[in-house]
């Protein structure tokens, strides 16, 4: 009787008990771990804290986008790793998107051969673990490239060798003015497009926005070249002999093989998933939509641009966001081929040197969490913008 009364009349209390037990259990686990950690760190003579970030790192990093050498701090090393992670993720996302869209559209091609080739591309690259693909490109494919002295030359301005890909370096004068002009061009394009949309919706006038936008994007920066003293020259890589048998390239920019292998594997792998999303998105737009658009007199391009794509994008974007997130997280496999990303530099070398496991692993995980959350916030915003606005 007591229990029954308790059950029915005190629903609040009944709800409270499991919650209280869960919270208590969680807290006791945390306290247990914390005390153990404190004792363990005490035994090893280290105390919890982030002061080590200012200490001298005294290790070198093979590839860095900012100035770095061994005399810099651990904090700086962390930054180098983070930038390298962002670099390879950005390259991967760029190429994965392009390849994914091409393959996805190819899968729907009315050309049987193209559709089959695209299908097999997806089936092959999606079903092999990413780490194996990275190993394959790095240890097998890129190791088969020639030595610097007979590197594969692209019109003598760029060389592909076993030590990496040497490309010309851009040397700008007055780069700031150029950058401002590009930004101005984008702002102009934004206004042109919104004006064109208004004209179309109010008066039914068609303005060829693509051509105008392209012209703006070329013309405004071109003006800075002609009149505002912006100029661009290239520094080409040149073969240099270090000793009778050892050659290298001087000048230019060297893209290390680790970066090439990682970017290649990440984009080819993720492209298969994006291709499936693109395919599902285009298939998801009802046939009736296209027929309706055709019946009110839109031409083929207009149907694609005004009717199919806006609806397909709505289906494509959410899962593709997830793929971008996955790619960013998968870039951590860099550690397997010694590309100096945040995991290798920070959770690898720095951890070995300082022994501060808890601090370093937490910082690394928090960084990835932040990256993940910021990409998903941006994509949610974009998604909301593209979503159907119901009146």
């Amino acid at each position, binding site marked *: 009787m007591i229990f029954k009364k308790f059950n029915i009349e005190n629903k609040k209390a009944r709800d409270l008990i499991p919650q209280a037990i869960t*919270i208590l259990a969680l807290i006791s686990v945390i306290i247990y*771990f914390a005390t153990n*950690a404190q004792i363990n*760190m005490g035994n090893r003579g280290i105390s919890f804290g982030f002061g080590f970030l200012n200490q001298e790192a005294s290790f070198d990093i093979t590839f860095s986008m900012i100035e770095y050498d061994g005399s810099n701090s651990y904090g700086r090393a962390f930054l180098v790793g983070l930038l390298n992670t962002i670099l390879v993720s950005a390259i991967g996302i760029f190429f994965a998107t392009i390849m994914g869209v091409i393959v996805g559209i190819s899968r729907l091609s009315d050309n049987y*051969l193209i559709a089959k080739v695209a299908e097999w591309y997806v089936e092959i690259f999606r079903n092999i673990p990413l*780490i194996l693909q990275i190993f394959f490109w790095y240890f097998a494919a890129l190791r088969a490239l020639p030595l610097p002295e007979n590197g594969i030359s692209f019109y003598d301005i760029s060389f592909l060798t076993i030590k990496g890909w040497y490309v010309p370096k851009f040397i700008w004068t007055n780069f700031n003015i150029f950058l401002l002009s590009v930004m101005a061009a984008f702002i102009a394009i934004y206004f042109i497009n919104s004006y064109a949309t208004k004209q179309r919706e109010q008066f039914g006038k068609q303005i060829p926005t693509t051509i105008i936008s392209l012209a703006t994007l070329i013309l405004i920066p071109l003006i800075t070249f002609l009149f505002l003293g912006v100029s661009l020259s290239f520094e080409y890589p040149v073969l240099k002999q270090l000793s009778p048998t050892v050659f290298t390239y001087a000048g230019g920019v060297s893209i290390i093989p680790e970066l090439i292998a990682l970017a290649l594997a990440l984009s080819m792998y993720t492209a298969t998933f994006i291709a499936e999303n693109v395919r599902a998105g285009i298939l998801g737009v009802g046939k009736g939509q296209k027929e309706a658009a055709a019946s009110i007199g839109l031409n083929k391009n207009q149907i694609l641009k005004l009717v199919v794509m806006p609806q397909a994008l709505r289906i494509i974007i959410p899962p593709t966001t997830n793929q971008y997130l996955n790619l960013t997280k998968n870039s951590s496999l860099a550690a397997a081929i010694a590309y100096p990303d945040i995991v290798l530099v920070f959770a690898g070398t720095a951890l070995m040197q300082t022994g501060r496991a808890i601090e370093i692993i937490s910082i*690394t995980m928090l960084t*990835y969490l932040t990256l993940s959350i910021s990409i998903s916030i941006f994509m949610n915003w974009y998604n909301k913008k593209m979503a159907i606005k119901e009146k």
Partner: protein
Amino acid sequence: MNLIAKPSKDNIKTYVPIGLFLVSLSFLDVFVNAFFNFNLMGFLPSQLSYFLPLILGYIGFYLIRIEFSGVRSLDILNKNINSNNFNALLTLFTIFIIIKSIPPMLDWFILEANFVGNSKDDCTGDGACWVFIKVWFNRFMYGLYPDAEQWRINTAFLILFAVVGVSFFVSEKLKKYFILFLVFVFPFLGIKLISGGSFGLEYVESAAWGGLSLTFIISAFAILFCFPIGVILALGRRSSLPAIKYISIGFIELWRGVPLITVLFMSAVMFPMFLPDGTFIDKLIRVLIAITLFEAAYMAEVVRGGLQALPKGQYEAAKSLGMGYWRMNALIILPQALKLVIPGIANTLLALVKDTPLIFVVGLMELAGMIGLAKTNPKWLGMAMEGYVFAGLVFWIICYAMSRYSQNLEKKLSTER
């Protein structure tokens, strides 16, 4: 004049034979060039002879592009690979690339490859050195597990396959016991058999385990444990009790926001710090916990999708029958929700299998790890290509079979509704 006319039904008799002749001539040229290294059009200027197959094929495809020709096979051909100029070009490029890439692939894989011998010196041909795979095959399958004890791994897997195989043929009532045995008894029996240490079996430490069998062991255990944890987390996330809900959300999003490699790092270097001094948990178990929790978070999201897709009426109907929370979920909600998300579950399991090579981070070596070890062996340097092609093939077969199976399952279940 007649020759410049647009291909149509009227001139089908002249155009189609000429077109087919030109197309086959272009393919023949590329084929002879690729397989016998002989240039049929060698008498022409080099640049012209290079592009000639493309031009010939293009003209040929143009000539045979006759809509509604009345010849059925021609219509099918045109519709599928020759519907317009652009498609004709794509078709030509695709076929040329395929023809061109067959001879080098064939050479490397089979014709120039080496199959006999016991050491690297036996590999004299230009192609792949499959001797490497042959010599190391045992290691690739069983890792560093002692040769004399390998029958134990074989037995464990044989029992597994036998039980699974027999369970397909027995009655529904017996099937239940088979499944119970597989889930609750066999995993521990199998692990005891493989690790040994009792029943007169020699103890084999987990550091010696490896190769493809380790991939299977880790996948099987992670699947076994991550499923119930995932279901509980999904239920927790949909709970009306705020504390349980937010703890579940926090747990799921934490794991989903970080890469597996950092989780494995954590299990290797950070986790021991959280245990009392002197406690030692086996590396394999730590890795298993890490992978299980990681995949459970993904599983939870998949299951949540199924829970959300169920109509509210199902919950209300269950409650109106007087069912409590647990009975409602176990008997009404979960059976329906899980059935809805079988493709998602299969994808998560597939991802789990593909993630297992990452355990190299903590020094355990499954197939990919063993190949890394073998290719750095001084006697077998330069075998990376063979090794990774082999590993890729093995993983591809496993993953492709899994994905096809899940697609079939999906189809089967969708017709039942």
